[in-house]
């Protein structure tokens, strides 16, 4: 079932269009990652999905009903869809009172409130801080309490703006595991923004890639900011970083050099090469397999080769390749499969 359906959605601040999405559908019960660089429009889209902002034009359907951006109706929707900010703020009260706020305004009785608060704090591992003044918590603890404050409300949709960007590694793991658990056990739909493709790869079932307010047709993992350059023979290359340069095909050569662009590589076209095979002329990389997982009846392989690359293959091909996590492999990226998406100045 479609949770959100977006049609010709635009958000403009004065004359600047910050979001322009012709069509987008988000399914119920899944985890979605909104990916993109700073200023790509992730938070703007998340705010619109949380009914915290009003679009300049266009339509949003929530569970097949057209959302009318009238405060009274939005309030009803906000009780189903709850958002956790990137830098959540806790009220200057105890942790318990913070969690109680949303429950109280929903008219939930005292004993049920206490039960839900304890349950939510248990979920984030913060029960021992129940009576602590919120101002005394660390950044990571505040983030977890903010998450608990939302979880106590038992929303059907959870929206998180950069849920792990301001927390340490331990708290990151806790939050990621928690979000996975919520989706799995409570079938909670989760949408989060991030600029971390590894987090998206680890957590999300689907990704929505944004760039300069527009949807980009690319998989999350193989999208890289690159610099274009041309050698003395006129061939084009893109530099992913200082030690990693890939050749581009002729069709991309209309681009101007020394421009920052986004390059996308379709994971289906990255080819594994066996050591006894004749090596292609260019774009051969060595890397270590970091993850192998089943994804929609296909195999998704994550290889670390200076950057993380995603490969997709059929089960049959996977069985033939005999690859394992931790094993070093070689793979080839055909120049004509590197797609230059946007040009940035």
């Amino acid at each position, binding site marked *: 079932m479609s949770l959100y359906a977006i049609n010709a959605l635009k958000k403009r601040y004065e004359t600047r269009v910050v979001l322009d999405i012709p069509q987008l559908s988000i399914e119920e019960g899944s985890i979605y990652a909104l990916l993109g660089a700073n200023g790509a429009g992730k938070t703007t889209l998340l705010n619109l999905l949380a009914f915290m902002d009003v679009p300049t034009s266009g339509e949003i359907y929530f569970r097949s009903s057209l959302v009318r951006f009238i405060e009274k109706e939005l309030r009803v929707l906000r009780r189903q869809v709850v958002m956790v*900010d990137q830098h959540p703020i806790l009220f200057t009260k105890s942790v318990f009172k913070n969690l109680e706020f*949303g429950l109280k305004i929903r008219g939930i009785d005292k004993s049920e409130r206490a039960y839900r608060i304890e349950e939510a704090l248990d979920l984030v591992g913060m029960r021992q801080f129940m009576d602590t003044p919120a101002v005394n918590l660390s950044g990571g603890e505040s983030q977890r309490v903010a998450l608990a404050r939302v979880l106590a409300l038992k929303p059907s949709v959870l929206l998180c703006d950069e849920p792990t960007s301001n927390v340490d590694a331990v708290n990151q793991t806790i939050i990621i595991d928690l979000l996975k658990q919520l989706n799995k056990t409570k079938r909670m739909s989760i949408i989060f923004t991030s600029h971390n493709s590894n987090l998206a790869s680890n957590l999300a079932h689907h990704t929505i890639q944004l760039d300069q307010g527009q949807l980009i047709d690319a998989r999350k993992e193989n999208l890289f900011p690159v610099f274009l350059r041309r050698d003395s023979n006129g061939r084009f290359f893109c530099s992913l970083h200082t030690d990693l340069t890939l050749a581009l095909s002729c069709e991309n050569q209309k681009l101007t050099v020394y421009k920052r662009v986004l390059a996308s590589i379709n994971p289906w076209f990255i080819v594994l090469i066996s050591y006894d095979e004749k090596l292609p002329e260019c774009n051969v990389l060595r890397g270590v397999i970091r993850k192998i997982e089943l994804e929609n009846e296909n195999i998704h392989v994550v290889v670390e080769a200076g950057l993380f690359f995603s490969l997709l293959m059929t089960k049959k091909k996977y069985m033939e390749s005999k690859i394992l996590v931790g094993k070093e492999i070689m793979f080839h990226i055909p120049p004509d499969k590197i797609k230059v998406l946007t040009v940035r100045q």
Partner: protein
Amino acid sequence: MKLLLDSCLSAIDLILSFNAEILAIVGVSIKVSLTSTIIASLAGVPLGFTIAFSKWRWKRTTITILNTLLALPTVVIGLFVYAFISRSGILGPLNLLYTQKAIVIGQVILIIPVVTAFTLSSIGSIDARYRRTAAALGANFLQTAQVILQEARFGIMAAVIAAFGRVISEIGISMMLGGNIKGFTRTMTTAMALEYDKGAFILATALGMILMGISFGMNFLFNFLQGKMRS
């Protein structure tokens, strides 16, 4: 110097003896000041809140006017209110002149800008994310307002204390609208002015000491709450 020292010692004696006249004057002062502070707070806090939350085009002009009104001289207010409540004024039939109610009316006009401006300032300094968070958690306008008021509580309390400090020490309004009637509208400041005119320093000094004590207490509380707000 000797006169001041003698007056101070005698004033302390007078205070410690719980002199009936002093108690009556202090009682009137506190009663009138508290009443006007409560009324001004009931009007000024919501007004400050409304201005802080409003997005209308004249908001900045309103704030400028409000800040100007902070320096409104008490005698101007006295004169203005007198024009309304004197026998020939439109509120003349209500017989308000030279009553405690008249002082309260004048003082309310004096401190509404104080309460409003301080409330506006303390709400303006509250992080916008509080409002957003409350809304995201499903709060309606009133519930969101409650959150903001809760977060701005120290600032608002400081506004109320500052307003009380302003009215307890004013003289123009009390004198012009209250008339300094003994046992009825005689406040600490008007009594001090009268005693000074009579050349009777002891009662004036005693009242001055009490007034200073109240002002000090108020300022102490004000600073304490402001410190709390900052932290």
